């Protein structure tokens, strides 16, 4: 379990900064082909785990993150400056959605030297937004990245295959395991007796008879 010494010692002051790492995958088939962008709210560049977090990236704010004991779905937002930086270019010109986001919090000692870091959030970018706030002669741009935790991503993931001939042979054209599904679909089996003829599957709302489920079922891998 992660420990946060600066807080655990019951000090009355903590010095902390946030570090954000954005890993953009340029090629689905090549996970090494990535662009990594780092941002921090610290006063200088810090190297954490071989990654240098620059303070010049334009980090404006990091949204709230859940810190539940059990695994829960949590989203967060990261606001970046869109003024005189390349952040607008990053979100528009790269495959930002699906990128990995990691948020760390770093703790500084009294001499403002980084002493500890803890992970706060790991997830995937699900959306981004660019907003312009113009009032009279003040014109500002903000890039907002929305990120979801991995649990949310898994909840929305549909995977697996249907228990019919086509779906089964999609992965292995010689797999005949489900070839007879159509023949037995709709047939009632009273065990110990001869099978009855096919029955007509009732329309929607019928709750599905025992012979109906094969084609409609999906399951997670």
């Amino acid at each position, binding site marked *: 379990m992660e420990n946060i010494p600066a807080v655990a010692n019951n000090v*009355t*002051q*903590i*010095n*902390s*900064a946030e570090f954000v790492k954005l890993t953009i995958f340029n090629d689905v088939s090549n996970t090494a082909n990535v662009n990594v962008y780092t941002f921090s*709210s*610290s*006063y*200088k*560049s810090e190297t954490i785990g071989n990654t240098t977090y620059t*303070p*010049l990236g334009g980090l404006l704010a990091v949204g709230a993150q859940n810190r539940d004991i059990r695994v829960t779905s949590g989203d967060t937002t990261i606001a970046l400056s869109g003024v005189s930086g390349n952040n607008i270019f990053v979100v528009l010109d790269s495959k930002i959605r699906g990128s990995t986001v990691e948020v760390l919090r770093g703790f*500084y*000692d009294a*001499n*403002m*030297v980084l002493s500890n870091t803890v992970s706060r959030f790991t997830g995937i970018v699900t959306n981004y937004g660019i907003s312009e706030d113009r009032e009279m002669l003040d014109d500002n741009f903000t890039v907002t990245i929305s990120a979801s935790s991995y649990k949310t991503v898994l909840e929305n993931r549909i995977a697996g295959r249907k228990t019919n001939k086509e779906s089964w042979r999609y992965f292995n054209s010689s797999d005949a395991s489900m070839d007879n599904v159509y023949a037995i679909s709709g047939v009632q089996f009273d065990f110990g007796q001869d099978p009855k003829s096919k029955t007509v599957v009732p329309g929607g709302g019928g709750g599905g008879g025992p012979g109906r489920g094969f084609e409609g079922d999906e399951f997670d891998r």
Partner: protein
Amino acid sequence: MAGLQEIINKAGSINIDRRKVVGLQVTRNEIPRTSLTPTRNPWRFTIEMPPVLSWWDHRNLVEALDTLDRYSPQIVNFSNSCVSWIWRYQGVLTQNQVNGLTVSSFNGTQLTLSGLVAAGITNGTTLFLANDLIQIGANPYPFTVASTSVVATGSNTITFTVNRPNFLSFGAYNNASITVGPNCNFYLFCPNMPIYKLVPGNQFSFQGVLINNARIEFSDNFTLYEWVGGAA
């Protein structure tokens, strides 16, 4: 130099804001808890200009301000005789001794200077008093000394605390010389650059001709903000 330097030189009053980014909560049992974001802690000056500047004499000033606008930084200092007393060096070093000191380490808020022996700085010498201004090399981002710094016996180095952490790169501070006192440079811009109003008056005669003139009244105080993004 016109522009922000002239604004500083002719300031009616100067408000200095060096407050840090802090979160503050007082618990139910009235114990305060604070959090600090370690920023570059930029200097912020709010300068009030006296409404006495004449249009004829300061057209170059307003043109410089219009050129700088709200987004251009300018290097300024407080060496003008009108304001040099503000950051007067309080230590006892001569200029030659200051020139002999170099930065050997600058980690967080701990600044170490070396070269004391060669510079003839002996035991017990007070190098700095609290609030003395120090510039590292040619970087226009002054730091202030947090407390009195006295040389220990036989030491060739001295380490002391400054008001904000080091955000200069290694190459920018390592073995760099230092500048102290009012000659330290600030890199400032004016995000609220006031507009100005001309109030007719102060007419004068020039070669027998009556020349119309005006006083310049600025719409607001000048809020000068340190351009710390240039340091990397």
